[in-house]
């Protein structure tokens, strides 16, 4: 459930699989062209409901409510041993020292 005035994320389908451009590869043609936008919710609604939002630039956009107060979770990823080994080896080649 999200409340009127909340900053939310909505989803919509722009083109159905049958409407996709002719030049698109087959795997892409089998799926819809989807869109995600953020804005201020215009009326109280539950997730999955059709809603309207007003975006940062003042556009009125409709779609399915998918998130309330959306935030970013991307990161620096996992430890990648190959990167550290490559860096250590280059450092050792240039400045000397022991392999650890």
């Amino acid at each position: 459930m999200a409340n009127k005035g909340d900053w939310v994320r909505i989803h919509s389908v722009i083109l159905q699989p049958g409407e996709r451009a002719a030049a698109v590869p087959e795997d892409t043609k089998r799926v819809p062209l989807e869109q995600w936008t953020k804005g201020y919710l215009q009326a109280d609604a539950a997730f999955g409901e059709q809603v309207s939002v007003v975006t940062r630039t003042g556009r009125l956009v409709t779609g399915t409510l998918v998130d309330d107060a959306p935030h970013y979770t991307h990161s620096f990823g996992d430890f990648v041993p190959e990167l550290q080994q490559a860096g250590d080896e280059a450092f050792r080649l240039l400045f000397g020292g022991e392999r650890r």
Partner: protein
Amino acid sequence: MTKDNSYSAVLARKPEIIRAAVGVDYSKFESGSIAFDYEGMMASTGYSLEDVIAIQRGYAIGNTPLIELHNITSLVRSLSKTGYGARIFIKDEAANPSGSFKVRRAATSIHHAKRMGYPGALSATSGNYGAAVASCCAKSGLPCIVVQECYDSRGVGQPEIIEKARKCEALGAEVVQLSVGPELFYTVLRMLEDTGYFNASLYTAFGIAGIETLGYELAGQCRTQIGKDPDVVVCTNAGGGNLTGTARGLYKADCFPEIVAASVNLKGLHMASDTQFNKKSFTTGHTGFGMPFSTWPDRSDVPRSAARPLRYMDRYVTVRQGEVFYTTELLARLEGIERGPAGNTSLAAAISIAQELPESAVVVVQETEYTGAGKHGSAQLSFARQNGIRVSLGDPKDEVPGESIVLPAHPSLLRAEEVDLDHMRRSLITHAAETVNQAPTSADIAFLAQETKASEAFVRNTLSETAQK
């Protein structure tokens, strides 16, 4: 009356939508045949190089440091035959307000949009250009929309693109994200029509004129800091604007180094494929853009692209994804500078090229870009592993795009591979001839020679070979 917003109806309105959204009548540059007035189009911005420099100063753009990479040069010399191993310099474009050279490209457009009274600006980009437009719009007090291709049909987004969305939002932009597909352009046209915003296209003369300052500045810095002109300038090549603008700026400073294009080799991956979208670990600077945009520039969101890299390219090389991640690590570990990864494509190529040149030669890598969450070697290689890509140390020549990423087990294994530039030139000339029904005119032949940095004889030979086929 309500507008027909079907895909075909909107695309049919493309010419008038684009004309209104960039304020340029492209028809006046056309000859009616293959040739068009490229220099006339470039001059049509009405802004001189000095004007552009002044506009960029207003946005705190430019004057980025030119840094000598002493330690990477030493490593290169340890791999080269005696007396070889050129000095490598890097222009730290990450020092610009938006974190990349792309803000040079945005500044003239946004200055112009503001001056012409557009109510806002829109840009279609999944790259650093979004933050660049957002940065200039923030400074100019203009609303800004950035439209990105970001997710596959599972809703999984490229970490590099998600970070770019975050940065655009941090600088005040509205970000609209789409799943894979070239029909992004359809949504862009609809939004341009609905908002009346300026289309801050990457490919207008405004954009390319903005990059000229990079080349011009670079020439001046080499003369002041090193006391000589660069022998080689390496540019990461995707849509071609970076190389085009830099070369034009160098030439305006009467500086004529060898201009080398460098792209990440993504051979075999289709850029519009839903299932292959997340099999790549680079979303720009790769051959998937570099090859088609070099051999046929007029495939962008404007009728005539101002980015025409074959006009300026002396050499084209590719490097592997693993080599660029490795180079990014070298820059951090040997020089203490954390940048990229994608912007380090040209540095990876430079490490290879410098080994062919004497110690007295100067190789300049003309950009860096900021690093962040998602936009980082560990983030992008972790993501690759999650998508079934094998990551290892070994010989990068064994790397298969979409299946594996191989970082060099030793720096001597980093080797740029040559692209057959004449083959690309012939491709452009052949395609151009196919766009008209009549035989190319003498003006067309002169134009195609300029388009491909080749002789008129080369153009004539290519045309006659094509005609025989």
